[in-house]
């Protein structure tokens, strides 16, 4: 179809579209008057031909049942744009609005125009806004129902991303929820963790992820523990925030130049580590006003940093370099606080302000007396906060942003439970402190359903039972056709050791199987040592060479001195990493044996371990299960450097529970194996079926992710195989690992002999 604007500009209709529309509007005097006024304004800024194209666009929108309110919204937007805009941008606004109006209705189109208009600066060229509106129009064409929810969260979204980011984020949403309108609405309203996560991803300019591994190590080296950082796209989060053991990191810092990112992130993470090391109790809010709370946080920041610099003086340089507030006489809270922060961090900082001088003196004295005495902080805050009141300097709690940029916003330093109910100002902060925390910290589920009541039901687990975080892995989204970085959290759960007697007894019973495995081992070992002859050095004399040498000597010739011989074992150089699925389904009984899938698998691993010890192949095994993407559970059974017997009590203690997030387990195993230098590195997964997890509805998602993980691992040079247990499991396995790399063991009771046999089949040339 030819766009209205082009058609109307055709020469045969000449410069008349404006007049035509004016005549048509004759019956609606009010509208006609507004049109006339708008036409006059446009005429003042553009050429006659362009003005007529414009009139054509107005007519086209009018014909799309726009209604006066929508037209009015555009006209008023125009008033503000006209001094600076271009004709194409102007026409683009009209045509995008028409598309919106046709697909999503006049009311939604009007909201869109108004939302965009609210972000216009007078005289701006409007090209960016036209682009945004065009993207919204594109969304309206594909999913009209999604526009209104998006407009609900419009400012948050547009704050986070530019136009191309917006377009990409919308495409993500449509890909994630092609059919389910309810969940799609939740996505576009940002009421969905995945939506925020995608937004953070698309905002992406300066990302934390590239610094994560390095900062994890710095923190471990300097403080002996590792930081747990979670990146969050949320406009309310302008600084990092401490939330329990977590550090929430804004997806986007406004004003962080890329060149400063490595130091700023380092400063932020190490500052948070100082709190974890030295802020031993959280401060009671009680009746403290927001200004005092802000001061407590500021002083506590200085205290913990100073404590750290006593051991690590270089950190003072790191943090000090990020204080930029110059000395001045300004007496506003933002300025005073930024200068006080700088003065406390840098003794050489000279600022003439009396209040700052007093605060510094009080702090220095108290710190010198007993730096570990955290209670001096609220005391000083009370005194100097009172002084601010006397000076009548107002504090804008909502607009206050902690300086410098690397410091946490302080909300995590307080115990809000003890807030005085009369203390209304502080209560507001408390709500903010709780807001993100609840969502991100306890849910942590990817495809968070729209309704909170429907939250994926994670199996209850005791807080203290939470495993230690060992890695974040990406996950592949088949609809996005992209990896979602840091999507799953892998945690370590040391094995509960069980009594080994039953397992040993079963090992003893399996004598027949062991004999067969033994034979295999002997064959595998049979790659004979080769003899390397005529060497300068070696274990034995090379008799032939020695004889020749003797002859040479007799003949008074120079003998060839290379008369030794060495044995060289052309050693097998194979390492095996085995991943054992211990999800709930492995509790299923195995026909006729009184055993379960898991207990049979455990026996198999024990047999394999014993055999491998005989062979000398390095071997490690981990068990895995998962309880949502925030809790992929790894239980080490045997490390490469342990003897295989060490695995026995752990195998005996395994309990089936939770689900199977196969891709995550594969990435974990691949990471462990990939760092080892061996000729062949074999990754074997023993599982009883398709992957599944509580926070994933589409089985395809995890299957595709597993495929992707397999491809990645192969890309790293690993050989990846699946041992699929039970009927039809091999089909599921083949879909992910490929048919040739999947070994179905239909009768689970046969696993013990099959597993070792498989291994040799795979690795013995």
């Amino acid at each position: 179809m030819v766009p209205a604007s082009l058609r109307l500009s055709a020469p045969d209709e000449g410069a008349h579209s404006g007049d035509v529309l004016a005549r048509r509007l004759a019956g609606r005097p009010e509208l006609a008057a507004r049109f006339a006024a708008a036409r006059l304004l446009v005429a003042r800024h553009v050429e006659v031909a362009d003005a007529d194209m414009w009139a054509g666009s107005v007519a086209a929108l009018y014909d799309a049942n726009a209604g006066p309110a929508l037209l009015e919204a555009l006209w008023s937007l125009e008033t503000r744009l006209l001094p600076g805009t271009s004709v194409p941008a102007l026409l683009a606004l009209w045509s995008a609005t028409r598309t919106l109006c046709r697909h999503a209705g006049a009311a939604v189109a009007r909201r869109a125009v108004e939302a965009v208009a609210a972000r216009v600066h007078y005289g701006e060229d409007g090209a960016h806004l036209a682009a945004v509106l065009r993207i919204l129009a594109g969304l309206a064409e594909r999913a009209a129902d999604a526009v209104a929810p998006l407009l609900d969260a419009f400012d948050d979204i547009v704050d986070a991303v530019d136009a191309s980011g917006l377009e990409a984020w919308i495409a993500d949403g449509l890909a994630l929820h092609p059919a389910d309108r309810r969940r799609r609405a939740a996505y576009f309203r940002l009421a969905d963790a995945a939506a925020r996560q995608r937004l953070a991803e698309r905002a992406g300019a300066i990302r934390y992820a590239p610094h994560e591994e390095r900062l994890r190590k710095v923190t471990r080296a300097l403080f002996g523990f590792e930081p747990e950082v979670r990146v969050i796209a949320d406009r309310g989060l302008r600084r990092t925030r401490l939330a329990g053991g977590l550090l929430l990191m804004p997806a986007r810092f406004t004003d962080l130049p890329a060149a400063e990112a490595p130091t700023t992130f380092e400063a932020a993470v190490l500052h948070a580590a100082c709190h974890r090391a030295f802020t031993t109790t959280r401060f009671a809010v009680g009746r403290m006003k927001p200004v005092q709370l802000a001061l407590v946080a500021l002083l506590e920041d200085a205290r913990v940093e100073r404590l750290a610099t006593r051991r690590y003086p270089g950190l003072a340089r790191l943090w000090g370099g990020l204080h930029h507030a110059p000395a001045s006489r300004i007496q506003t809270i933002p300025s005073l606080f930024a200068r006080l922060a700088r003065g406390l961090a840098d003794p050489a900082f000279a600022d003439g302000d009396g209040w700052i001088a007093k605060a510094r003196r009080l702090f220095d004295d108290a710190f010198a007396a007993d730096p570990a005495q955290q209670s001096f902080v609220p005391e000083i805050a009370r005194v100097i906060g009172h002084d601010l009141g006397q000076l009548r300097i107002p504090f804008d709690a909502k607009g206050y942003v902690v300086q410098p940029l690397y410091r946490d916003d302080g909300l995590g330093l307080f115990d809000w439970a003890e807030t005085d109910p009369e203390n209304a100002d502080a209560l507001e902060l408390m709500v903010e402190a709780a807001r993100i925390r609840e969502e991100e910290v306890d849910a942590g589920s990817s495809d968070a359903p729209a309704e909170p009541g429907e939250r994926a039901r994670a199996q209850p687990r005791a807080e203290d039972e939470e495993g230690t975080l060992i890695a974040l892995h990406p996950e592949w989204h088949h609809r996005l056709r992209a990896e979602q970085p840091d999507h799953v959290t892998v945690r370590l759960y040391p094995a509960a050791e069980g009594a080994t007697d039953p397992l040993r007894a079963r090992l003893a019973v399996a004598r027949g199987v062991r004999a067969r495995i033994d034979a295999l081992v002997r064959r595998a070992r049979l790659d004979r040592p080769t003899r390397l002859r005529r060497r300068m050095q070696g274990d034995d004399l090379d008799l032939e060479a020695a004889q020749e040498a003797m002859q040479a000597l007799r003949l008074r010739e120079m003998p060839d001195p290379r008369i030794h011989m060495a044995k060289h074992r052309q050693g097998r150089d194979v390492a095996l990493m085995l991943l054992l699925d211990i999800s709930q389904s492995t509790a299923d009984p195995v026909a006729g044996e009184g055993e379960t899938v898991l207990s049979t698998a455990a026996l198999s691993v024990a047999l394999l371990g014993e055999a491998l010890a005989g062979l000398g192949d390095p071997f490690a095994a981990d068990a895995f299960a998962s309880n949502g993407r925030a809790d992929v559970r790894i239980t080490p059974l045997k490390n490469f450097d342990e003897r295989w017997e060490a695995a026995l009590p752990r195998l005996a203690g395994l309990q089936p529970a939770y689900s199977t997030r196969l891709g995550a387990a594969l990435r974990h195993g691949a990471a462990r194996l990939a760092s080892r230098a061996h000729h062949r590195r074999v990754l074997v997964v023993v599982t009883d079926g398709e992957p599944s997890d509580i926070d994933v509805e589409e089985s395809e998602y995890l299957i595709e992710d597993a495929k992707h993980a397999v491809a990645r691992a192969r890309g790293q040079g690993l050989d990846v195989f699946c041992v699929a247990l039970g009927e039809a499991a091999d089909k599921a396995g083949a879909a992910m690992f490929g048919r040739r790399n999947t070994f179905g063991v239909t009768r689970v009771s046969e696993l013990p002999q099959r597993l070792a046999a498989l291994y040799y089949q795979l690795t013995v040339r």
Partner: protein
Amino acid sequence: MNLDQYAIAEEPFYAPVAEEVVLFEAAYAERIPLMLKGPTGCGKTRFVEHMAWRLKRPLITVACHEDMTASDLVGRYLLDADGTVWRDGPLTEAVRHGAICYLDEIVEARQDTTVVIHPLTDERRVLPLDKRNELVAAHPDFFLVISYNPGYQSAVKDLKESTKQRFAAIDFTYAHADRETAIVAQEAGIALDIAEKLVRIASASRNLGGRGLDEGASTRTLIRAGKLIARGIGIAQACDMTIVSALTDDRDTRGALRSVVSACL
């Protein structure tokens, strides 16, 4: 045969960390073979040198490595103008003439090599030279010491249980910070406050053992850094050469170590 070349004339500087001197002397008195366990560069070798000096025994040290064969320890036939002659290996020399024999980093040697020491470590105290058809009875002063780094062990490189059982063990760790500072200052010839910073860097790096690094920076590493500093190289640069770049090639781990160095200075 003269073992003079193996005698230690001057006292090697050694700052005791715990009871190790007394324990060594007792084991020596009973000729119970000793295993010194601990991470690399923590002073095991220096300690043995010191003890040899103290006990006035010659010391024959063998640094074990992967390609070492039993012949490298016990000896082999060599060819000369008249045919072949037997040449004792370092272990045999120590056994015959009564020296302390120190097999450094014994796990590095292959297991079939290390079994030759077994008959020396029980009541028999003999060394069979199969190729010569000779059984060498150990000199009364012969004493066997091995070192072993448990941090390194892997399934392929581990001491056989049967080998371990033949030794009494003394555990070594890096000296306590103050002691280590004094050692580094003394050995490298640098001021105590600089040595203190180096030790702090090392102890932070040791937190990364098993997580990016096999082991953290050793005392030996620190002494090397100190020696460069004593020659006028900047501290950060010296640490970069001897610690950061030497310990790892991984980008993130290097970045982390650089931050650690800078935090400590």
